[in-house]
């Protein structure tokens, strides 16, 4: 047997199997190379006690084991193997000192753990942080870089090659490196065993809450516009100008005055009051109203000759006015997404616990913060615009929703792989097929349900024993109890032109179904839904959207002038009359400081299609 293997103790840098490794540094009597999904491959060997400290400083702690496929244990004159004959089986590091250090035979354990395992895993994880399979929204900032988190939405586990030490991920339902087919003739007799795991989870209930502060600010012109004022003619201009709101004036409801303009355009003239006994009459400027106060009533017809008395000249002001208001609001928003995803699977138990549901709860307040960096260097700010009304109804929000569905899907798929089939095949055959935890197996045998079962290799153990001469490989595959089939979905209503008129992806569809994974599961989209809030769209917040009623300017000069016709000698009476109709500007705004707003989206989903790799409902051949 010793000629069947090469066993070289090497240094950690000798990571490539080379001709100099074709030697026998240890005399092995029993060997097992085993690996389970997600684990490092291990090597356990029984060797003649070398009586040296394997962990002594300077001694090589790594091992190369290679197998000679041409080895015939029954042949009496096995020749020495050459490098070209050898198939490397394992490269790993010794794990510790032997348990029985003084015996003639000692057991050594080795582990195929790459020195750069963490770096490799991180590099692979970086390639897997793609939408919708990864979404930083759902992770705390300190967890986003954790490589293991990229697998939450994938029915996959890490895989570490036992020879190359390459780190990859491997799907637990379908392996990436092909399928090995075994028939009953390939399988060692009576070695097939079927076992059932825990009752599969058939339903995942997801509740996810997204919360953020909707932050919006901006101006709205209420009177006039930038560079254009509203002219106001008035005899109460002084008071109007004095009381014109200044920037910063708090209107309430999240509004303050931003731009305030109220300029007098007719100059600076004041009202004038005089007494005259001269012949003549008025010659004042055009923009004034003159009040003549005659103290007498005779003669009957006065066409103006001589009327001494008081004259009050009221200046009519012309104001150029403009006013804008600024909104600065911070409104609490939350959206809760709920859905239940059920898998379409066969029954394995009649117990009520069969099909138990799992509840998953998610919460995030990260959508208004950068959660990552895109390839072009820009930050991924999920909400996009801090003033957005909704998150889950946006394209980016839909990616977050799809991630949730994928997490639920991963759990259901992994859970549905609940039947293990274990069997043994000859060592040489297993090595020739390149058995690993990245491969699938289809095994056909009349003792199996339906005569055939498929599945991903969950674990394997290559065993060689020098005493018994037994060279076998025990393989365990995981079979899925799904019902198979393909999900089809209605894409919804196009928002631009009829479907088919433009290429897919060129226009948005609303209200239809989308499939995060083609053919497996679909959900009804919410991308066209109107948020349940106060209706303000800060992208289109124009005056008409925020104004209650019109902006009114009452009692301008034409209304005030009739009050001036009768005047007592005391000017105060004239002013009292005017002030009964002061020019008044009025407007009312809708408050924006509303909220918090809470919205719930119940997502309709289809059944999850689960592969059917074992038919538990099929007839079994009891004669075999």
């Amino acid at each position: 047997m010793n000629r069947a293997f090469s066993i070289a103790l090497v240094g950690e840098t000798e990571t490539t199997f080379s001709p100099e490794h074709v030697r026998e540094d240890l005399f092995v009597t029993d060997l097992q190379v085993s690996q389970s999904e997600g684990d490092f491959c291990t090597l356990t060997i029984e060797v003649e006690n070398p009586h040296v400290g394997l962990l002594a400083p300077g001694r090589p702690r790594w091992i190369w084991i290679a197998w000679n496929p041409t080895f015939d244990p029954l042949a009496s004159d096995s020749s020495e193997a050459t490098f070209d004959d050898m198939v490397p089986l394992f490269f790993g590091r010794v794990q510790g000192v032997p348990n029985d250090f003084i015996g003639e035979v000692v057991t050594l354990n080795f582990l195929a753990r790459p020195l750069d395992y963490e770096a490799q895993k991180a590099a692979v994880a970086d390639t897997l942080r793609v939408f919708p399979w990864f979404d930083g929204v759902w992770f705390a900032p300190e967890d986003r870089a954790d490589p293991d988190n990229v697998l939450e939405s994938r029915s996959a586990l890490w895989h570490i090659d036992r020879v190359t030490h390459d780190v990859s991920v491997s799907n637990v339902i379908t392996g990436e490196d092909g399928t090995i087919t075994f028939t009953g003739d390939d399988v060692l007799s009576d070695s097939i065993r079927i076992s059932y795991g825990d009752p599969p989870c058939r339903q995942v209930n997801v509740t996810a809450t997204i919360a953020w502060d909707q932050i919006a600010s901006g101006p709205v012109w209420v009177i006039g516009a930038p560079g254009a004022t509203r002219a106001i003619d008035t005899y109460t201009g002084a008071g109007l100008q004095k009381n014109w709101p200044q920037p910063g004036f708090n209107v309430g409801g999240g509004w303050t005055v931003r731009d305030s303009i109220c300029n007098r355009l007719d100059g600076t003239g004041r009202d004038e009051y005089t007494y005259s006994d001269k012949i003549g009459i008025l010659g004042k400027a055009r923009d004034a109203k003159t009040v003549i106060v005659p103290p007498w009533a005779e003669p009957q017809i006065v066409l103006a000759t001589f009327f001494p008395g008081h004259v009050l000249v009221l200046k009519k002001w012309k104001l150029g006015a403009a006013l804008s208001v600024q909104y600065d609001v911070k409104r609490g928003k939350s959206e809760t997404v709920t859905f239940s995803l059920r898998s379409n699977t066969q029954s394995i138990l009649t117990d009520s616990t069969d099909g138990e549901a799992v509840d998953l709860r998610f919460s995030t307040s990260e959508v208004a913060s950068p959660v990552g960096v895109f390839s072009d260097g820009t930050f991924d700010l999920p909400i996009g615009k801090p003033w957005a009304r909704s998150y889950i109804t946006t394209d980016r929000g839909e990616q977050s929703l799809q991630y949730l569905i994928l997490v639920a899907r991963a759990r259901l798929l992994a859970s549905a792989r609940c039947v293990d089939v274990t069997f043994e095949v000859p060592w040489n055959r297993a090595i020739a097929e390149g058995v690993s935890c990245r491969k699938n197996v289809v095994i056909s045998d009349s003792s199996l349900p339906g005569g055939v079962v498929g599945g991903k290799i969950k674990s394997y153990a290559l065993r060689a024993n020098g005493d018994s001469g037994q060279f076998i490989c025990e393989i365990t595959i995981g079979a899925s109890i799904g019902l198979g089939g393909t999900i089809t979905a209605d894409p919804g209503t196009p928002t631009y032109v009829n479907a088919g008129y433009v290429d897919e992806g060129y226009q948005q569809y609303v209200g239809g179904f989308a499939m995060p994974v083609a053919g497996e599961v679909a959900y009804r989209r919410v991308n066209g839904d109107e948020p349940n809030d106060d209706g303000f769209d800060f992208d289109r917040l124009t005056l008409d959207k925020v104004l209650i009623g019109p902006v009114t300017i009452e009692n301008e000069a034409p209304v005030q002038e009739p009050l001036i016709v009768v005047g007592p000698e005391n000017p105060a009476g004239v002013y009292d009359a005017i002030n009964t109709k002061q020019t008044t500007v009025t407007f009312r705004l809708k408050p924006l400081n509303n909220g918090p707003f809470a919205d719930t989206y119940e997502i309709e989903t289809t059944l999850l299609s689960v592969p059917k790799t074992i038919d538990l409902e099929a007839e079994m051949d009891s004669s075999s």
Partner: protein
Amino acid sequence: MSLERVVRPFQAGDIFTARAVMPAIPPTGINLSDDVCLVTITGENPGDYEDVPDSTIFNNFKVEWKEDKDKRVTETVRIEQEDNPDNYIEVERVQSATMTDKQTGRSLTLKFADWDKGRK
């Protein structure tokens, strides 16, 4: 058996519920502010006039101004003899007269009210 176990995320429990990122907002629907947001801008004429010499507003009426008689508004009033209403006269009272500045075209309407003030 490995000394080191590789994490199996989807079997290792729920990593998403371990952190409370923010307090839940109760689903109370739409909460509206009761702010009124009413803006009313007004102000009075303070009566802040300036005393000026009379010469500034009076000038040569006879030369500058002429009445536009088409705009004259009058009323005819019957004035009866006290204790003997059969004796009476009718007078035409000017209610308003509009004067026009020939040079500038500006007009001034003079209104005369309370003709009976002081009459017995």
